């Protein structure tokens, strides 16, 4: 049955009358993704050529193609070349983290960290603060604050609600897709057909939907930063 769906391994820490709860599975799986990305980056760096005249080897060609793809797909919709160059590492890191988090659910005994709303919400808040920081820096304090009373001063509450709705929908979109896929998978494998079909569903939800949602998450981050900087 499905009783295990709501269960979580939670560590409660109480200091005085201040209490903290940590979801251990999410934290461990996030660290697995981080370590995986760091190891991959270090391993790929070993293959890079030292001199510019040297002929690129296979790893170099692969990394070049990957970076070109990310650059072309993710940052081509930025308003200015300078902004795209400045934010390319951030956006591609976000994309790779979400992509590997989504793909982790395919490996047995592993779980997607993005299945937890806390992870997606913190990523969305990161994008929110980055977009507002860049808007503040690019437009200056006066024009940044003036953006909130556009087009009319009485629109101020509506603009503020609109700004808050952005990270919320950004986080819930990723969380809902990954968690919905996980629930469907659990229902099918526990109640309906426990052989073959869950594997195909896992490939579909983990690999295909995971890749699309990671791309969409990064693209929406670009769009939010772009709107904040431009308008």
């Amino acid at each position, binding site marked *: 049955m499905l009783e295990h*769906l709501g269960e979580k391994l939670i560590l409660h820490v109480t200091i005085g009358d201040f209490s903290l709860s940590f979801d251990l599975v999410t934290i461990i799986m996030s660290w697995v993704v981080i370590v995986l990305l760091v190891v991959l980056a270090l391993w790929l760096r070993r293959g890079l050529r030292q001199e510019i005249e040297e002929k690129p080897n296979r790893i170099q060609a692969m990394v070049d193609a990957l970076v070109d793809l990310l650059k072309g797909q993710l940052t081509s919709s930025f308003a200015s070349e300078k902004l795209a160059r400045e934010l390319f590492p951030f956006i591609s890191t976000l994309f790779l983290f979400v992509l590997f988090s989504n793909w982790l659910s395919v490996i047995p005994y592993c779980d997607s960290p993005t299945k937890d709303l806390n992870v997606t919400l913190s990523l969305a808040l990161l994008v929110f603060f980055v977009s507002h920081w860049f808007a503040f820096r690019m437009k200056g304090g006066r024009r940044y604050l003036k953006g909130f009373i556009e087009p009319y001063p009485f629109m101020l509450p509506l603009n503020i609600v609109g700004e808050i709705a952005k990270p919320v929908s950004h986080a*819930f*979109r990723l969380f*809902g*897709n990954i*968690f*919905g896929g996980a*629930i469907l998978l659990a229902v099918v494998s526990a109640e309906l057909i426990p052989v073959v079909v869950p594997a195909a569903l896992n490939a579909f939800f983990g690999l295909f939907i995971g890749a699309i949602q990671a791309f969409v998450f990064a693209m929406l981050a670009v769009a939010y930063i772009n709107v904040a900087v431009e308008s």
Partner: protein
Amino acid sequence: MLQDTQNVVSGISGADIATAAKYLAAGFVMAIGSIGSAIGEGLVAAHALDGIARQPEMEGALMRTMVVGQAITESTGIYSLVVAIILLLVV
């Protein structure tokens, strides 16, 4: 007192009714909530296909915009999914 006796006779308690309402509500949330996003995503895909048929060389840009547009259209469906999950697992 009278109500209690009636409940004992029929065998249905308030908690049973609440559970039934919970499952019914989750079903209705998904059924009605996904209509809008389904129609919206279909419209986005249809118009993107129109655009690709007219200008095949624009396929890359159109596909990228289409995926992002569909993801935004999908949010209402995702909200109803989240509400249904909250109804089933949390409430």
